């Protein structure tokens, strides 16, 4: 596939079993490698919000977003790459922290507005939030001490200003809102 730049795709999906599998299948069919994926609740009950970052040419991305929208449970898909967005990810970094290094690490953390969320005898866990570049920069500062463990959530994004990033279509006050089958019943594992 043609390499393009990193795109941010936001999708609102019905919270039903198997949805993640269906969506992943559409990306796989088109040969995309997902750089990051986050899933969680949205402002609307019953709808989850997914944020993908993927590498690809604009035409390919457009095609795959159309394919994603064909998944019945996908309510809305937007490519927000051209929009002004707030984009953040969260990282937890477990770093070696011998007693003599602690002060330096805490100082670095402060510069990046990272919180110390756990202290061990020879380690610290930092929690940092920001865009990918900021997390990368923090990591490179911590690497000399020895990064033992790292977890990054991947990007979440929201369009700046009053407009909503993705909007679920109006249901005209219809209370049977987003699904007809088995509303409100607990499912064998939700979403996945």
């Amino acid at each position, binding site marked *: 596939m043609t390499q393009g730049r990193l795109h941010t795709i936001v999708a609102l999906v*019905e919270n039903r079993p*198997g949805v993640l599998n269906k969506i992943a299948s559409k990306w796989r069919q088109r040969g995309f490698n997902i750089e990051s994926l986050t899933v969680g609740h949205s402002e609307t009950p019953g709808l989850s919000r997914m944020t993908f970052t993927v590498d690809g040419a604009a035409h390919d991305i457009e095609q795959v977003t159309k394919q994603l*929208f064909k*998944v019945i449970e996908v309510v809305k898909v937007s490519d927000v790459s051209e929009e002004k967005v707030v984009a953040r990810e969260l990282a937890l970094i477990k770093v070696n922290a011998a007693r003599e290094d602690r002060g330096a690490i805490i100082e670095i953390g402060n510069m990046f507005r990272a919180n110390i969320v756990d202290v061990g005898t020879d380690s610290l866990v930092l929690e940092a939030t920001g865009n990918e570049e900021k997390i990368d920069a923090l990591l490179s500062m911590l690497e000399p001490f020895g990064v033992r463990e790292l977890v990054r959530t991947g990007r979440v994004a929201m369009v700046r200003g009053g407009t909503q990033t993705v909007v679920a279509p109006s*249901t005209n006050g219809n209370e049977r809102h987003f699904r007809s089958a*088995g509303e409100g019943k607990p499912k064998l594992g939700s979403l996945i």
Partner: protein
Amino acid sequence: MTKLNGAEIILECLRKEGVDTIFGYPGGANLPMYDALPKYPDIRHILVRHEQAAAHAADAYARITGKAGVVWATSGPGATNLVTGIANAWMDSVPLVCITGAVVSWLIGRDGFQEADITGITIPITKHNQLVLDVDDIAPAIAEAFHVATTGRPGPVLVDIPRDVQQQMAEFKYPDRVELAGYHPTIEADPALVRRAAQAIDEAQRPLIIAGHGVVIARAADELKELAEKAQIPVITTLLGIGGFPGSHELYQGMPGMHGMYWNNIGIQECDLLLGIGMRFDDRVTGALKDFAPKAKIVHIDIDPAEIGKNVKTFVPIVGDVKAVLKQLVPQVKPARHDEWRAWFRRMREEHPSIAIPETDKLLPQYVIKKIYELSGPNAYYATGVGQHQMWAAQYFWGDNPYSFVTSGGLGTMGFEVPAAIGVQIARPHDVVWSFCGDGGFQMTLEELALCTEYELPVKFAIINNNYLGMVRQWQDRFYNGNKQSVRMFQPDFVKLAEAMGIQGMRVSDKAMVESSIEAALRHPGAVVIDFQVDEVEDCYPMMPPGVSLSETIEQPPVKQPEYAR
């Protein structure tokens, strides 16, 4: 309100949807459904011999009736046997509702006997699928399945229901309407785009219509005819668009593409406006995309927004139901004559008679197919398999019976011909139904012949038997230095085989016997298998080799070396 069990609820749903026929096969996980079946005598169950055939027969039934085809299968192997049939329906946008029994819910995910993750397996080949884990969800899930399968761009939907859920009791309540937040197919097109399309048509000197399966699915043949006649635009139909425009019409030009009419392939390269109506610019139609229709602006009408711009750059993109869009478009188009352009087609057709049959005493496959078309009357239906016989069947179809040609286009499923013809005959019990069979494809699904005897289906099977997997042999001859590998196989005696299934069998190897055998088959009240032992090495032309442009279509086969020299 009285309570019903889940299986009865399934059948109540089918009744609500107006289903009169189910194609299926029983097994451990769908036994409650079969247990409930006698209480619904208005619903007929056709017992196939292999689940793949259930899906193909239901697929053909759906194409002919315009209703969703309904399929039942059990869990595990029953469900996985459906996969080819579901994929076939998916590729050709056919509405199917497949209801599979699943292992009891507490065994799901534990590799229970005959367990297969059929919802997982069918994700890429269904429009929608779901596993139902609560009896109260059955009715909404089936309502949703019919809604999704039959609206927008149709397609197969699978509902997987564990055996214990089929046995749970609940009140039956069918949803009045299905509301899905993420599913609102566009029917009427944007009027501004329709205006732009009309303007483009008015300005064109050499407009050309390629009509696809969308015209057939939307039953829009009349609207298409109105458009073509008003502006005098020549009409090409894709393989699946056959039957979407009257074959005898003077504007009709036949099929384009890999084995299409030579004049069409050149015509596409020469036109200045190409109207793709309910079609998807498949590679078998376009050839190399970079050289496709270089002089043309493209107006693309399709109900699936993902098809617009997928393969070709579009000048006017129109998303909507083909019938609705044509109704919007026709009044806005100015009457035109395009005399020169139509004369161009007439001249091309005289100079390049793509489907003229050579004079010979040999029994040529095209000759057999052409004779069947000539002798079967104006109301006959046809199903085909895949390969050379399919292409010839498409090339020589110039009939007027709308929506009467059923073939496996997108997936190209050999073996489709037998169960598909059975599905067509069930949908059209009083009409002549021919199955054009390859000798290879016929052997893939011939177990279904027994249905013709069991359900008194008078299907006429014409095996175009060249004793080769003909299309593969043609490619091996042409692109693999004549290295014919695994294309010749032991053949059973098809006449005896037919007789063993309770069907009349005939064998024809003499050209002089063709007409009388076809007439005898048409007179015979039951099913017939005719083994037409045709010339073994006849190739299918015109042919556009894979990967080249339409301009490089080869009109006639190269002069053949004698068989012993190859």
